[in-house]
């Protein structure tokens, strides 16, 4: 029978849950583009750091962490807008738009930070003086409740329609181009928010911390879809949250499995293998990303 590694402490499990909740915001953002509007958006590696960079700089300057977090959200939205314009206006393929914008964002993030990394251990963050787990739960709850309500609304119905069938959406009077841009803005705003919360959580921001964000987000989405099969579409967002927490717990367990030869440097290998395994095992889940 499966048992938890002996050296895995309760505090580490709580940290996994906290990180899982923070990254669930990123996972939901990725779900919004890859599934809801059916747009293979690679911007996230850049917009994640953009959110972290913007909030870190403002926090370092002594600004309110709430304003800094809000600004991260706005800047993330702008990154999504750039990707959307490249796709809709200049007809560049979705995959390419995201890669280009993420590439450009690396330089922009360096410009914003004016250094490859920023540390802000002493500064006041959104978590200062509060229980981190409770704060993260409240943020994730409010954010996802709002998103679920949006997706259940007429606007959400139209947003989902463009992901399923663009031709049908157009004959139903939906402005597909505008909705694509709005979807990308919403998604990247969420990813940037995740980046901002992550940097505030660890009191540190690095220009290369966005590497692998997309894969981690996708891992959370596929694990969630596989293990928590919600039938009604907007509720699938909940499976992204649970998937993200589970992913972090799995990773933590894997990192404490020295006895079977797994080492810290194997993290990407384990993540990749886990995604492949979940995507191959189709039975019993939606596996929406696997079929795309």
């Amino acid at each position, binding site marked *: 029978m499966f048992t938890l590694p002996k050296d895995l402490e309760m505090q580490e499990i709580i940290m996994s849950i906290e990180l899982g909740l923070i990254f669930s915001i990123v996972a939901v953002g990725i779900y919004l583009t890859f599934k809801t509007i059916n747009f293979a958006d690679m911007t996230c590696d850049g917009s994640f750091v953009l959110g972290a960079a913007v909030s870190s700089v403002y926090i370092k300057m002594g600004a309110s962490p709430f304003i800094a977090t809000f600004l991260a959200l706005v800047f993330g939205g702008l990154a999504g807008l750039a990707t959307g314009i490249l796709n809709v206006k200049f007809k560049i393929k979705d995959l390419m738009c995201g890669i280009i914008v993420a590439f450009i964002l690396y330089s922009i993030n360096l410009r914003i930070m004016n250094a490859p990394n920023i540390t802000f251990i002493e500064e006041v963050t959104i978590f200062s003086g509060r229980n981190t787990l409770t704060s993260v739960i409240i943020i994730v709850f409010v954010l996802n409740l709002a998103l679920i309500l949006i997706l259940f609304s*007429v606007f959400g119905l139209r947003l989902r329609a463009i992901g399923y069938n663009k031709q*049908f959406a157009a*004959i139903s*009077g939906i402005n597909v181009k505008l909705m694509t841009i709005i979807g990308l803005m919403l998604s990247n705003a969420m990813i940037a928010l995740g980046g901002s919360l992550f940097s505030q959580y660890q009191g540190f921001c690095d220009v290369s911390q966005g590497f692998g964000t997309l894969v981690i987000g996708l891992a959370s989405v596929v694990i969630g879809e596989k293990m928590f099969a919600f039938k009604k*579409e907007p509720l699938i967002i909940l499976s992204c949250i649970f998937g993200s927490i589970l992913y972090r717990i799995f990773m933590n367990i894997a990192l404490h499995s020295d006895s079977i030869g797994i080492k810290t440097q194997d993290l990407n290998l384990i993540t990749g293998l886990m995604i492949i395994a979940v995507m191959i095992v189709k039975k019993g889940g939606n596996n929406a990303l696997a079929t795309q």
Partner: protein
Amino acid sequence: MLLQLNDICVKNILKNLTLNVKKGEFVLIVGANGAGKTTLFNTISGASSPNNGSVFINGRDITLLDRHKRSAQISSVLQDPRAGTIAEMTIFENLKLAYLRNRCIKKYRKIVEYFKEKLSLIGLNLENRMNEYVRNLSGGQRQALSLVMATVGDYELLLLDEITAALDTRTSDMVMEITSKIVANEKKTCLAITHDQSHMNLFGDRTLKMENGQLSGFDKRSEPC
């Protein structure tokens, strides 16, 4: 005139095509594959723009108007029922999306009754399956649903693009029967495009023949088109 096409040229497919459709009229366009029927459909619905010429609806030039903006006046049914519906949404959600193209939903209960009434017209018992996913419906049922979806809400022109092309003979007959019912009930202007000559006897105040990107033929009262 409700619909006017003046000197429409699309690449080498449509050649100086002119067509006038009166309000309340049912025009059937018959042509072989490659005659330019779908290009004509796309030009009217806004899926593609003509190289030359103009499209008018109720005297308003809509040549450069985007497809989604035309949908308030032009309601379309596509060839492939899979393209005309969303399989991952329920029958109700599909109808709601179609209805929302030019109207707002104010009273939920009233709209459910309205959809039920529309669905009952086609006699497939879909009115009692509104919360079922469209992926569970057969090709014929999905095409019938597309027809109902095209007629919910307000519209000026019903555009049918080879609605039986992707169906087998039996299902095709069923869909044509449903189409006759809907057209008779709606009494709206309708332009149907088909390659099936047998439809000529079933529909239309006027039948036009499409060949090499041009329209020819006479209406039933022997007037030149």
